[in-house]
């Protein structure tokens, strides 16, 4: 009988906590968003399942090793985040998937990517004012770069206790780009500006596409060595894609490796969303100011687009500035959609891809600055 009662005490039912139940409900809600609404499903599904797994009462998933007993599965998988392994590997997959031709043929769009990172630094000040430490403020403000792996990488290095909230915020806002960006874009541009059709981009040669990742890494690596883990892997993946002699590696980086790392990353990010870390006032502040950072980044990108429009005599459509937030390719698609509302024959997608991928480089540089200085 004692054994029976002992067993009952070891069940989840006997150890339910309200906070744990609340987190499980949040996990199920994010799972619904990922599956039914298709909001960034490749990440939200494993993240939400990780939240679920770790918030079960007496869950051993994140248990530390003790008394000679091994730790939980997610404890070991989490080492990939703690040691800064997963995000750079994801970046390698992103580089292998990304075509940088729109950026190479129109390199001034890199400035739009740079302008859109201003939201990061504005939010940094706001988070300091709210009472966060400099490391926490940097980790939270990088949400404004709209770059999931960068946000995870920086928060794992600077504020691992905020990793769960930051990751959930970053990926949720990336999924909500089609709702967040258009009102800001319409507010800051006139109908005439939105109707601007841009000149066709020139063709890029194979040599240019091969030299591009090498040049980027040489320049940024010398400027900012702390950005090397992210940018280095991004450019390596792109080199695999473009050089033409490493097709197998390119395919592996795009597919098998990327998918495996996404599974591990998502699960372990979700595992950091235990009730103890997630259900705090800080989480609400992170969710609110993450959105603010995102909005400011969109606004500054569009304003830089307006400046470039004036400087070029109306050749640049300011809408593509919004794509400087590096939510690839969603924000480029949003630029196309908003542009076509006023001018159905306006195809801005390829032009917006330039600042979009420029923003990926910009957000990695911004993260490198925080890592170097803080």
């Amino acid at each position, binding site marked *: 009988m004692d054994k029976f009662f002992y067993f009952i005490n070891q069940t989840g039912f006997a150890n339910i906590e309200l906070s744990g139940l609340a987190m499980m409900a949040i996990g199920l809600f994010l799972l619904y968003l990922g599956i039914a609404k298709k909001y960034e499903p490749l990440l939200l599904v494993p993240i939400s399942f990780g939240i679920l797994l770790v918030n079960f009462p007496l869950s051993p998933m994140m248990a530390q090793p003790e008394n000679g007993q091994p730790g939980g599965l997610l404890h070991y998988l989490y080492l990939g985040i703690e040691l800064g392994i997963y995000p750079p590997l994801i970046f390698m997959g992103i580089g292998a998937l990304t075509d940088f031709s729109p*950026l*190479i043929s129109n*390199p*001034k769009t*890199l*400035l739009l*990517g*740079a302008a859109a*990172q*201003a939201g*990061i*630094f*504005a939010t*940094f*000040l706001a988070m*300091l*004012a*709210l*009472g966060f*430490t*400099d490391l926490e*403020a940097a980790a939270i403000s990088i949400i404004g770069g709209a770059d999931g792996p960068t946000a995870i990488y920086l928060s794992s290095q600077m504020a691992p206790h905020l990793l769960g909230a930051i990751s959930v915020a970053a990926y949720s806002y990336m999924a909500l780009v089609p709702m967040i960006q258009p009102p800001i874009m319409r507010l800051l541009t006139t109908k005439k500006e939105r109707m601007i059709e841009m000149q066709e981009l*020139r063709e*890029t*040669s194979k*040599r*240019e596409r091969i*030299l*591009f990742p090498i*040049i*980027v890494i040489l*320049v*940024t690596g010398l*400027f*900012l060595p702390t950005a090397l883990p992210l940018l280095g892997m991004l450019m390596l993946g792109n080199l695999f894609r473009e050089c033409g002699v490493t097709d197998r590696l390119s395919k592996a980086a795009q597919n098998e490796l990327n998918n495996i790392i996404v599974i591990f990353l998502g699960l372990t990010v979700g595992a950091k969303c235990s009730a103890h870390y997630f259900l705090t006032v800080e989480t609400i502040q992170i969710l609110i100011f993450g959105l603010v950072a995102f909005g400011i980044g969109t606004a500054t990108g569009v304003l830089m687009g307006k400046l470039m429009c004036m400087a070029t005599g109306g050749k640049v459509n300011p809408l593509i500035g919004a794509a400087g937030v590096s939510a690839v390719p969603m924000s480029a698609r949003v630029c196309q959609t908003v542009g076509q509302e006023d001018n159905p024959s306006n195809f801005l997608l390829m032009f917006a891809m330039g600042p979009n991928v*420029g923003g990926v*480089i*910009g957000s990695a*540089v*911004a993260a490198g*600055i*925080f890592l170097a*200085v*803080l």
Partner: protein
Amino acid sequence: MKGLEAISHYHGVSLAVLGVTVVFIALVVLAVIISRLHVVLGVWENPKAWLDRVRLWVFPEKPEKPEPPGPYFDDIHESARQLNLLIHAIGEPFSLPALIEKAEKIGISHAHSVVSHLIVSHLIVPDQKGYFYWNQKECDRLLGKGRGKKGVETING
């Protein structure tokens, strides 16, 4: 610690300014290099063409004098003589387009201008029915005076 005190304590403003500046400088440098990449590659792939362009830029070639066009009669006497023979060949009355076509075929350049010259000088006269006649009297009078100085008698006298 919150508010401006916290920002000041963590040097937030200088960090933010530094961050924006470094991001911009890094991406501007990248943009400049990438924008010149295709030019550098063009030189690498075809150095001879680039050297030719540089040579032309350093030592610009003098523009060649254009070759003079076919016979063009500044002198109305010569115009009258040539067109007199042509009109006798094509017969009268003649249409101006036919005359101009024939004149161009035999190599008279600026045929329109020559014919216009002769109309103004009343050597070609309209018959009020869309065709034209050669004013032989006027031609004889003109050619009978002898040739003027070379290139002197033009439409503008």
